[in-house]
């Protein structure tokens, strides 16, 4: 019996590095006990992490599949599992199962497109995986614009990577914004939806037509950004986002995460906006 695979039984892995990204977000590197990546994934997929006795929780795999050394999760402290993880030290073992979900269509629909990445707060976690995938397969994609915003400078996740790597990548345009003026910040100030509109308005019609947007963040940001993109001529077919619902099994069986007939854990979390529109408004 124990040689039969069981999706709910995880693998023991170990935290090999912890980085404090913002006051409430830490990024964890995770490897199997023999030093390998726990799985092969697609950008946008998730995995279930757990500490026995504390519980299980699902997180986006924020590292790119092109990273051959490790996988990373960026985790915002908000409850039992996440607080426990925030208190953990390097060398701590955790359990991992996955990867789950469909992921972004990086090898199909995204190929050859100009990419417009839009994220708010911790929403950058899933998007970062695609951004780095695109950067590592640069020839397969067109121009790249990244619009990212947070409450304050200190809440920008992956700030160091954004400044040291993305900003220095001549093939990528990075547009950062924070909600309110702050000492030591001379960049853009304002909410993401307006900023996206400002950035994308400058695209000519030809570029607009061949741009695919990836949009992740709090529901309110998604709502207004969508509206803005619509006003400047983007179609729903050009915009992808991820949904976040309560999850337990991650494999379409516990019945928890459905929107209409779709299970977000299995059929999502990535949805194209027009597909999402066809689902009942219950997310």
């Amino acid at each position, binding site marked *: *019996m124990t040689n039969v695979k069981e999706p709910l039984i995880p693998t*023991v892995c170990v935290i090999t590095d912890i980085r404090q990204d913002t006051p409430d977000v830490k990024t964890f590197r995770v490897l199997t006990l023999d030093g390998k990546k726990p799985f092969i994934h697609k950008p946008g997929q998730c995995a279930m992490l757990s500490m*026995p006795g504390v519980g299980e929780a699902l997180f986006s795999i924020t590292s790119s599949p092109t990273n051959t050394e490790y996988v990373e999760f960026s985790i915002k402290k908000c409850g039992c599992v996440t607080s426990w993880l925030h208190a953990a030290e390097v*060398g701590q073992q955790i359990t991992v199962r996955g990867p789950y979900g469909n992921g972004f269509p990086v090898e199909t629909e995204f190929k050859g497109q100009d990419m417009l990445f839009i994220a708010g707060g911790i929403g950058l976690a899933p998007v970062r995986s695609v951004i780095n995938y695109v950067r590592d397969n640069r020839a397969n994609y067109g121009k790249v614009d990244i619009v990212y915003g947070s409450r304050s400078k200190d809440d920008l996740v992956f700030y160091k990577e954004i400044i040291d790597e993305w900003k220095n990548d001549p093939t990528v345009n990075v547009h950062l914004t924070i909600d309110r003026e702050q000492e030591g910040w001379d960049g853009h100030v304002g909410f993401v939806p307006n900023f996206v509109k400002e950035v994308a308005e400058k695209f000519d019609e030809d570029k607009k037509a061949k741009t695919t947007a990836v949009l992740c963040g709090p529901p309110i940001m998604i709502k207004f950004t969508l509206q803005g993109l619509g006003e400047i001529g983007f179609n729903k077919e050009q915009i992808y986002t991820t949904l976040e619902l*309560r999850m337990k099994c991650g494999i379409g069986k516990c019945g928890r995460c459905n929107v209409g007939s779709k299970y977000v854990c299995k059929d999502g979390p990535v949805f194209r906006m027009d597909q999402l529109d066809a689902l009942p408004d*219950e997310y």
Partner: protein
Amino acid sequence: MRKCSLSNSTALFNKIAENATLYIPVDLEKGRVAYKKYADGMKMSDALKTDRSAKDFFFPQTENLMEFKTEGKSIEIIDNRSEAEDFVVFGVRACDVKSLEVLDKVFLAEPVDSYYKNRREHGVIVSMACTRPTETCFCGTFGIDASAPKGDIECYKTDDAFYFNAVTEKGEALLAKLDGVTESSDEKAVNEQKEQIKKVLDKLPLKDLKADEFGADKTDKFFNSPEWKNLSEACLGCGTCTFVCPTCQCYDIKDFKTNKGVQRFRCWDSCMYSDFTKMSAGQPRLTQMERFRQRFMHKLVYFPTNNDGMFSCVGCGRCVAKCPISMNIVKVMKTLGGKNND
């Protein structure tokens, strides 16, 4: 077809129990009926159905999934799954037999749930035709034939005998083992009973309930119906309907600290509960109306959409009988199902 006279039923049950754990429906106090592990001489209930369905044998209300030992920063996973014992469930009605087919679609779909599969492989279902279906029954609405209950062995009980027909290989193997306590028989008595059952089915109050209006890809047609509000108004969110339902399959996974380590187990959960989908930043189903709608949309629309039109209700009538406010899927279907169901 094999036959065993009722006067010989103890010998029959003893024979089955020689090779596998046997469960039969028995009458308990206060009119309750439940499957019990057979012991010599135990009397089988004649009741139409057990209070809880045969689902419990394959997807129990709680089950241990694995254990963990933790020490310092280390974790050890203890996979203590073991091969299930062979067992036979005797007297499963057509609706409950069909409910296993519904559960199979969930638990045997990739990635396969090994806990469920293990029990499915080791369990043999001896069904039982319904001679006295009742007013809450509407299996016919979903194309289920109470006079052909299927399972691994199809069984008919007349006034003086059990008649058996093997349906699957597993059923054949079991029936072959019962040669000593059964004899060959023609189909006459069974055919007569089938005719008689059809007559009873024809008189059932819900015989005309139709599911045609529901099914795959009908989300838009029903989701925003104004009727949900009235239908759900009195719902207490008690979850009874989901717990008695043979096809409800939602579960929760939880950890429990023991003195030896940590036990991870799963238990039934209910879409009727407010914390089922609750998140830190929101709640997609804020009111009981939305939770109520989820239950029925799932059974009548979402499940068929994902499973080639198969409904996730088998018309067993348990929720009809057990809801404290007498709300149920029949009322939902009658209200939303258009003139078909007037």
